[in-house]
């Protein structure tokens, strides 16, 4: 974490874990990374190497009377990284690869960020990718795992282990059935972001233009 992130964390003054009611009883019981049902879901997810989807992100913040909605596309390219392209209402794109984060705003201005500078999003995205790949051991180090099946499919919960990360993220919940359908990130102060994926395309064609956006 770098200095500016530390300062902003202090500024956000998140109150210490006032338990926000979980969406379901997912967080009642932690599971082991080796849990068989979790492993089965992970295997199914890991079978898909790459993923392209349309997303709608809904941010609910206490300070805002209405939720903030944005839409775009997301591409998880095997061996390359994650490309997150927001189209509405303000265009921007965001690329994460191991050790690299690049943000391009609607004016075409590029900002290269070291993962150490923006750890929260980097953590969320790498956790997300790790879940997709079935890499429970690596997530298990950073997060406490939770899992259960529901009528619609399954829910995987992640709660951060590190003190500083806990101040910014309460938990990350991934929901899906055949494929991954939702990612919900909740913060200790009650703010939350829900990313809903639709039109999920498994193992899509990745164009050379898109490939060029990734490093290496």
């Amino acid at each position, binding site marked *: *974490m*770098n*200095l*500016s992130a*530390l*300062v*902003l*964390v*202090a*500024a*956000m*003054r*998140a109150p210490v874990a006032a338990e926000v009611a979980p969406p379901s009883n997912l967080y009642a019981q932690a599971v082991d990374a080796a849990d068989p049902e979790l492993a089965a879901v992970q295997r199914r997810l890991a079978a898909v190497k790459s993923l392209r989807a349309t997303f709608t992100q809904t*941010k609910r*913040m*206490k*300070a*805002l*009377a*209405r*939720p*903030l909605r*944005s839409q775009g596309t997301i591409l998880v390219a095997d061996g390359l990284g994650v490309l*997150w392209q*927001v189209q509405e*209402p*303000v265009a*921007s794109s*965001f690329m994460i690869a191991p050790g690299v984060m690049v*943000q391009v*705003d*609607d004016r075409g201005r590029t900002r290269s*960020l*070291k993962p*150490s*500078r*923006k750890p*929260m*999003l980097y953590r969320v995205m790498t956790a997300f990718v790790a879940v997709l790949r079935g890499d429970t051991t690596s997530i298990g180090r950073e997060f406490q795992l939770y899992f259960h099946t529901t009528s619609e499919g399954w829910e995987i919960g992640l709660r951060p282990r590190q003190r500083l990360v806990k101040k*910014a993220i309460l938990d990350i919940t991934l929901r899906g059935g055949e494929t991954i359908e939702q990612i919900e990130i909740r*913060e200790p*102060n*009650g*703010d939350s*972001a829900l990313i809903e994926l639709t039109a999920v395309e498994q193992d899509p064609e990745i164009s050379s233009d898109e490939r060029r956006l990734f490093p290496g």
Partner: protein
Amino acid sequence: MNDASSPGDPRSRFRLWCALVIVAAAILSWRVHRGVEIDSNILHLLPATERDPVVEEIVEQFAEAGATRSVFLIGGLEPARSVEAGDRLAASLRASPVFREVQFRVADDVGAATYELYFPHRYAVLSKRMQDVLAAPDAAEEIVAHARRTMYAPVATFNSSLLERDPLFFFSDFVEGLAGAREGWTIVDGAVVIEHDDAAYAMVTAVAHESAFSREAQRTVTPVVSAAIEEVQGAFPGAQVLRGGALKFATEAAGMAEREASIIGIGSIIGVVLLMVSTFRSLRQLTFGMCSLAVAFLFAATATFVAFERVHLVTLGFGASLLGVCIDYSFHYFSEGLEAPEAGGPSVLRRVFAAISFGALTSGIGYGALSLAPFPGLRQMTVFSCFGLLGAYLTVCCLYPRFQVVSPRASPPLLLRLSTRMIRRLDAIPPARAVAGLLLIAACSLPALGQLQVDDDIRALQASSPSLRDEEDRVRAVVQAGDFSRFFVVEGRDAQEVLEREVALRVHLDALVARGHLGAYFAVSSAVPPASEQRRQASKLATALDAGRPAVTAYFEEVGMGPRASQGLWSALEAAPAAPLEVTTWMESPASFAQRDLWVGTTSRGVASVVMLSEVRDASGVLAITAPGVSYVDKVSDISQLLRRYRTKAARLVALAYLAIFVFLVARYGVRLGVCASVPSILAALSVFGVFGYAGFALNIFHMLGLLLVLGISVDYAIFFAESRASAGPTLLAVALSGVTTLLSFGLLAWSETPFLHGFGSAVLIGICVAFLTAPIAVRALGKS
């Protein structure tokens, strides 16, 4: 021959000598008992730069800060591991009393402290980007557009809590800009970890009580540091610890100097002993010779400790070279005594008296001239050397005649016979050939004079091993700290004036950075803008947002910004301006830990701060800056310039000394002999220049000072020969012995790795060789024939 004139003289002289020795010994023991301070700080040898005294004081203070600070970078491990290693290192360093302060894990407080310090001023202390936005007419629209972008960006840098209190992200914007100055600085578990070139380094900073240049500090601090580093490397395999700071250089240099001084001292003594024993074949001369040296040192030490409060280590080291010169008079006496061993002491003395008296006089002039140079250390050396010479001279005059120093022998020893034969041959050289030979020596040197170079850069005088320099370069590259030797001193009546002057200076510096002439700079005003600036920005912000109220309101409506946030913003802008952020508050906050040292505070004529530069690529731009209350300090260049000025002064001094001695020689010996007697010293100087010119060595002030010494000693030889009688075997022997011992003492210096000793020694080595070779020819073959 018996001395019939005053039989009582040797005895009374001897008694006088005894009295002097006892008095000197008493004074010395009293002085030592009172406590003698040996100064080991090399920096105290350097002359004071002729600078404004207040600025000089600030420079001293800053130099002190630089000299007491050490930085340790722990790399080669995972960041979390390196933090643990840093804990271990910091704990070991803290456990020792030599460190005043050890910093590690400061950052835990820094985040919260920075927030507490700046958040209340978020509408007055703005980022550079925001200030530029405010300068444009449609500022409010741009601010809203930026806020919108931030709201919808995938990278979320805010939450409701922050949003309510800073809905347009002024504080977030400022924080981004603030941290940008130090690339790669991250915080892991509350400790500073710097990422550089794909490696991560945990940084521990330690401030010692003593300056790195004091020998005392080197002796106490260096072992503590080495032990702590070893401990960390043992407990954390793979860890690499890099040290930054002056301590390692200073320790290396001082250690080298000490080793060399002992070698030179021991080498000289061994040389003298061997020479004496092999020449005179008797322990008697050796004993008496040692006695004269002991008395020489007694007088030298007494005079120096009485005259000076603190004696520098280098003076004592230099004094070790004195041996070679002081023994000359004894050699002369002994050699003369060898020729006619049945002669009594006083008779021998009478024969050499003129020679050694004038010799001592001219050597004294040579050493005395050293004191005219502005180096504090040289004054001590002059006192030490002159009194040493006096002691040796008095011993020869007062002690030796009293006793039978030379034992009667059947025949003169081998070396004396050889010298006698040699001198006869030298005397036989026809004047024309002698002149030709001497002219040849001169002619060899003259062409090289055109190739002579000078180099006054003090950095040439700093010989550090490449491994230490590499280590320092790596630490510099990782830490990206400022250069402690190049900075601006900004003065003003009060803190605000200083800050405003800094801002004016920074305009120039920003231009240099933009042109690539300067890497970066560090100034307090970057962290604490002047109060007038803060008020101006707050007012501009309020005006801009007021003018663009419709756009802001529309945006708030769009995102559904709660009433608390929007009302909070408008009321804050309309309220009376809060008190500005002050330097004192900033200093007290943990947030200022990296830059606190830049604020000097109150001086005798106001308030001052320092703006430190980093990576000065083109000094001309920096030098061209003039601004009120601002002075530029470049320690390296300042001292180098001082050395250049004094080199030219010393050159004139040397020329003057040569002239004075020439006049004296002519006055004493008449024109012909006088001129011939000057030749060896002139040729000696010419040869030094010649060798340096051909070899491409650059001259500096220390070579000039070496020349003064060469003058004193070479004139000794000339005088010895000028005063010599027809059969001058003993004189040649004495001069040969003197030459060898002098070469040993000073010549050994030429192999020193310490550049200034090396320069000094080389000049003396070359000069003495030439003087020794030419003296008998010039004076006897030419002058006396």
